């Protein structure tokens, strides 16, 4: 018996490895190697001598953990994290709240124009981030904005790109673009639920609202957790919206979000070594945040874990 089992494993021979090969090769080439190279770069720096002009005046040397020390000690990075956390909390709450609301509304028995509404809500997700931001940017610009007149009529603060308002304007772009996708994930999960559940609830005398709160949302919890994790990762990496809005407003610095700082260090200032170290720090924080969230909700939502 045991002998035969062993033989079967042997007979499989190279096949499993062959099947694994494409994935492993891709993983190595496009994930493991770049990460390894980033770590290597993060441990090095440039040493210039004299004027730094001409051949041989610039050498790459081993820097130890200096770049990490500088990255962690940079107040601008942490200020960036604070801005992103505030922005992220707002985006997450509004985006997922709206997605859940829309998904539940579309799933109710009597809704007209369901198909059209679904597509209309999803459509912004298909607009590339840069295009979406530019589009909104034009709507925000004081002298071009159609909102301007409306805001002024109500005596409101008119500049949508001002120091106090720009973060909401950015969050609006992210929410506009992200609600559709998250709604679709939740809605698809809802459609997979056997209709008998609702029928049973209805026979027990539950209203549509009660069905939504007591039946649908509990069923949706895993999907909500999934979308939350995705959204956390996406907001930590916020880059497109502030970068695309930056040229038209003077309220967004080149280090507004941590990833913008990495971009600035690498491609504006030309210090890829510092940028590499900061990237690793950001990746570590993103991992901690997303896994931390998963741990917390695992214990709370699934109880038995």
């Amino acid at each position: 018996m045991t002998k035969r089992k062993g033989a079967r494993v042997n007979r499989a021979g190279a096949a499993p490895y062959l099947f694994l090969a494409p994935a492993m090769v891709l993983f190595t080439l496009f994930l493991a190697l770049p990460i390894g190279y980033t770590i290597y770069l993060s441990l090095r720096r440039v040493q210039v001598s004299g004027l730094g002009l001409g051949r041989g005046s610039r050498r790459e040397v081993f820097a130890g953990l200096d770049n990490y020390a500088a990255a962690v000690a940079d107040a601008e990075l942490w200020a960036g994290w604070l801005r992103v956390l505030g922005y992220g909390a707002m985006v997450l709450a509004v985006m997922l709240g709206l997605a859940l609301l829309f998904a539940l509304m579309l799933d109710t028995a009597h809704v007209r124009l369901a198909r059209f509404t679904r597509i209309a809500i999803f459509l912004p997700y298909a607009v590339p981030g840069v295009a979406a931001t530019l589009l909104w940017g034009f709507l925000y610009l004081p002298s071009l904005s159609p909102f301007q007149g409306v805001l002024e009529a109500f005596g409101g603060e008119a500049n949508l790109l001002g120091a106090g308002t720009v973060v909401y304007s950015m969050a609006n772009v992210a929410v506009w673009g992200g609600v559709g996708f998250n709604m679709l994930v939740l809605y698809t999960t809802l459609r997979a639920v056997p209709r008998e559940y609702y029928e049973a609830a209805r026979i027990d005398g539950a209203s549509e609202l009660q069905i939504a709160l007591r039946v649908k949302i509990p069923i949706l919890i895993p999907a909500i957790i999934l979308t939350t994790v995705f959204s956390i990762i996406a907001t930590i990496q916020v880059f497109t919206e502030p970068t695309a809005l930056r040229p038209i407003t003077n309220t967004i610095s080149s280090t507004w979000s941590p990833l913008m700082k990495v971009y600035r260090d690498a491609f504006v200032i030309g210090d890829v070594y510092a940028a590499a170290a900061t990237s690793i720090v950001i990746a570590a924080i993103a991992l901690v945040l997303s896994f931390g969230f998963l741990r917390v909700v695992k214990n709370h939502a699934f109880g038995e874990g």
Partner: protein
Amino acid sequence: MRTRRFSAVAATLLTAVLAAGCGGSGSDAPESAPSSAPAAEGPVKLTYWTWVPNMDKIVAVWNNANPDIQVTVSKQAGGDDASAKFLTAAKAGNPPDLVQAEYQHLPSFVAADAVADLSQLVGDAKGEFSEGLWNLVTLGTDAVYGIPQDSGPMMLYYRADLFKKYGIEVPKTWDEYAEAARTVRKKDPKVYLGTFSSKDPGSFAGLAQQAGAQWWSISGESWKVAVNDAATLKVADYWGGLVKEGVIDDMPYFTPEWNKALNDGTLLTWPSAVWGPGVLDANAPKGKGKWAIAPLPQWNAGENVSGFWGGSSTAVAAGSKHKEQAAKFATWLNTDPEALALLVKEGAIYPASTKGQGVLTEAPAYFSGQPDFWQKANEIAGTARGFTFGPNVNVTYNAFKDAFDKAVQNKSSFADAVTAMQDATIADMRKSGFQLAQ
């Protein structure tokens, strides 16, 4: 509607594919060339990164006349991104043979050892250029890191018709400019005389040059950095005061809002460079024939100086396998009369070559109200002075944007913003190990 949208998408995809194709062949060329090297077999193939419009047409003339040296143009987006891209390509070991290098970025290219010294290859090209421009490509050393192509002497663009309407004289000094700014605000609170852009360090550098600033200089084996010298602080305080007073707007240049203001006549002046007509033509079509130029206002009455905003040279990559041929092409492009005429006509540039400036006679169509546009521009060009750029201009310029964004936003001291630029520049140079003079 649908078909139109589709064709737009198709065109975009096609461009992407073509661009990818060009990029591929571009990076292959220097690799495959050395195997067929010592010139005997086949023509030498050179790649050239530039954003001068219609450069492919100009290069075609060269290619026809020089079957042994074939140049392929790879069109780039201009500006700071182009410099970052070139530095990255040089670091990765596959730079183009030739690259358009803005004067302010050239020192960082040199510092990164990304461009070649052409002093043995360019013969007597030096005589074709004014000494100020030539210094920008030698950095004050014996080496030659590029051939000057175009330059950007600064002048004052103004709406002649609206100046008349509001009863303002063309300001001769910056004091008069400030007075005019106040007058305009009084006559029409919707209109501004000018705006201060916190996004354009190049413009600020030009204004500082006019005031006599020397942000970098080389003394012996060390760099002297003085971004916050007295001249620069004077310029910063002047504009900071006007912004704080509210008589000058603070919207950045090259934004949709700015275009709108230029177009509808709510912005009356633009201190800019000689390449301004193209920008105005594209963004303020309604102003055609209504704009005019004058020398920049002066700091002291009776003076006559200007600064530079922009301008670029043609450099040869240190990694190029065919430096000699590349240098030959670069010299032809920027000094040969035929090439200069083409650069002016097809590329719409203001040539760096003294001889090339003479080619310009007929005023740009946009300046139909000013037939002596080029005579005036050439006169002003003669009064422009620059300064040596340092090896980390990108750091300084980035610090400008962040610091002045904040200063404009909070209406706080512009002089402090200049100090922030100086501190960032020094800190970066110290970190890399540059020798600094005190």
